[in-house]
């Protein structure tokens, strides 16, 4: 657990540096840093309804972040959660209005369709990876942009709500009886679902052969190959899982707080999910806490206008700084690992369950 603890410490240090840097920037820009910080605390924790709001923003980040953890642990840099989330949301929003049957069944089918759609979108990258060796980072990034454009097309064309006069293109609101949560975004069903997913993923990573094989593939593909692990099956399964989770997050969004498909909704969840995974040290537990932190930030930024005139874009500045700093420590650790692994491999490989990600090494073939 030592590596895990120090990873957590380093994450906290990097976030602290980013927050201090932001406080200085806010102060120099003529805002009161103290007001901003107390506003953040109120908006995230102590204010009325703040904890609910924090949870509302944390839940999708947990799903996306944990999915990212699964992929990153096995060394595959799937950053396509945004597109997968959009595909899930589109599938749920397109299918539910045309389905027959009672509301709970339509709801369940919609959620399953969303998971399947997220999976399929993610598996495009997995297929390209296994059949051509195409770099998954580039393909998933490009699939994000394509997914956003598909959403734009769908909300402007086939699913457009023609009755509304809104400026932003959106589909008609979904009927209330198929919604999982109301506009608060927190309800017994979705919270239970996310908790089950988190427990399942923790179990998968830490207590199953699959989790161990995936981790070994990520840390040392040659060792994994000698152990008879097929990297192709790891690619397919981790991409399917993370895509499915992102699709689920998309369904919970349109069947919950937003209640309809809106062009370009939740634009940052995918990238913040990557941050969540990295800040959480690529562990399920760490990612859960990191999701709570970023969820708190998102909740706070919605509350800030009440207490201070700090603009919303302040959150982007803070997130950008955290993102800029967060891999500094990871790379340093990878480097240290690489140096350490050469002379004596014994202590370095003793704890697969709490490992760090492998450096992105080229395939020896």
């Amino acid at each position: 657990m030592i590596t895990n603890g120090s990873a957590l410490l380093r994450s906290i240090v990097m976030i602290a540096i980013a927050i201090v840097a932001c406080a200085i920037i806010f102060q120099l820009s003529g805002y009161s840093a103290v007001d901003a910080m107390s506003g953040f605390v109120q908006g995230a924790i102590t204010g009325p309804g703040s904890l609910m709001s924090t949870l509302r923003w944390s839940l999708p980040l947990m799903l996306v972040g944990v999915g990212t953890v699964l992929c990153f642990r096995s060394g595959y840099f799937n950053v396509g959660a945004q597109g997968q989330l959009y595909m899930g949301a589109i599938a749920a929003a397109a299918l539910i209005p045309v389905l027959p049957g009672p509301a709970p069944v339509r709801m369940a089918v919609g959620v399953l369709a969303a998971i399947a759609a997220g999976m399929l979108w993610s598996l495009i990258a997995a297929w390209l990876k296994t059949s051509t060796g195409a770099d998954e980072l580039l393909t998933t990034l490009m699939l994000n942009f394509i997914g956003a454009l598909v959403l734009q097309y769908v909300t402007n064309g086939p699913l457009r709500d023609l009755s509304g006069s809104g400026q932003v293109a959106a589909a008609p609101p979904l009927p209330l009886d198929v919604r999982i949560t109301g506009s608060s975004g927190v309800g017994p069903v979705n919270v239970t679902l996310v908790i089950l997913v988190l427990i399942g993923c923790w179990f998968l990573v830490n207590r199953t052969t699959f989790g161990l094989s995936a981790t070994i593939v990520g840390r040392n593909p040659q060792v994994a190959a000698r152990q008879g692990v097929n990297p192709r099956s790891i690619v397919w399964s981790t991409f399917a899982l993370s895509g499915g989770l992102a699709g689920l997050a998309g369904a919970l969004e349109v069947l919950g707080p937003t209640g309809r498909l809106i062009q370009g909704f939740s634009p940052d969840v995918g990238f913040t999910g990557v941050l969540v995974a990295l800040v959480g040290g690529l562990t399920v537990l760490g990612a859960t806490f990191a999701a709570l932190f970023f969820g708190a930030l998102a909740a706070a930024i919605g509350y800030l206008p009440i207490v201070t005139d700090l603009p919303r874009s302040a959150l982007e500045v803070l997130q950008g700084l955290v993102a800029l700093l967060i891999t500094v420590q990871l790379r340093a650790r990878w480097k240290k690992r690489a140096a350490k692994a050469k002379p004596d491999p014994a202590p370095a490989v003793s704890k697969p369950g709490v490992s760090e990600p492998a450096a992105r090494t080229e395939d020896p073939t």
Partner: protein
Amino acid sequence: MWQFLETSLQDATPIALAALAGTFAARCGIFHLGLEGLMCVGAFTSVAVTIGTGNVLTGLTFAAIVCAMLSVLFWAITVKLKADPIIAGLALTTLGLGASTFAQETIFSTRGTITAPEGLWQPFAGTGFPMPTLSIIVIVTPLIILASWIVLRRSQFGFSISAIGEFPYAARSAGINIDRTRLTALVIGGVLCALAGAQLALGGLTSFSSDMTAGRGFIAFSAVVLGGSHPLGAAAASLFFGAANTLGIQAQLAKWPVPLELVLMLPYILTIVAVALTGVLLRKGAVAQSAFGELRS
């Protein structure tokens, strides 16, 4: 016809300049996903300083300086502190987009549009040339492309950059200072992104609105990949994307049955195809772990 060419060139120029910046970075082994952020900062700074001083040239200079400084920051984080260049690049984009909106809201108290008193010099205006609104940056860009080609393919410095990208160990053995060469390449890229942003904001509209780059930095990145990290290839891909974009808008205006989104997707789809084809050519079927994001030294 002339108007189509004019609009295409105006669309393609910011993409081409940013793609050249990406090419400089890609050739020394850094896949630069911060182009979008740098471009947005360049666009904002050029407009803001032009409003403040009333002088476009001062605006351009400041944009170049700010983007160069951000590039130094990016260099320090990725090269010196060994951060993952992909994550740091995306972070630079988030930071650049956020910071330019933040600065706009702080200085001008608006999230809408800020308008500069004057735009870039349009040398052909009033001369009877069929494309009168081309700005000086659009006209100079072919020269910049040529200069980049000469620097990257025909100069000692360019060969140092390529050596670092292809085989850093050999480059170091040959006495090349890897870190300093990467710094130079990234700073050149920063200045090019500032020009790209300035053209976007001051070339036609003479105004800035938040997130006005609208993914052009990522299209530029696609152009780098599609152009095989070659300056002329990247420029050709940018011109193609610019023309496709103009055609897409024309098609929408003419009510062709082609959704605009399909045209807008083209750069991304082509990039995926290019990456897959490269993968097939290089190593058929191997499930290699990617080395794209790894900064070798």
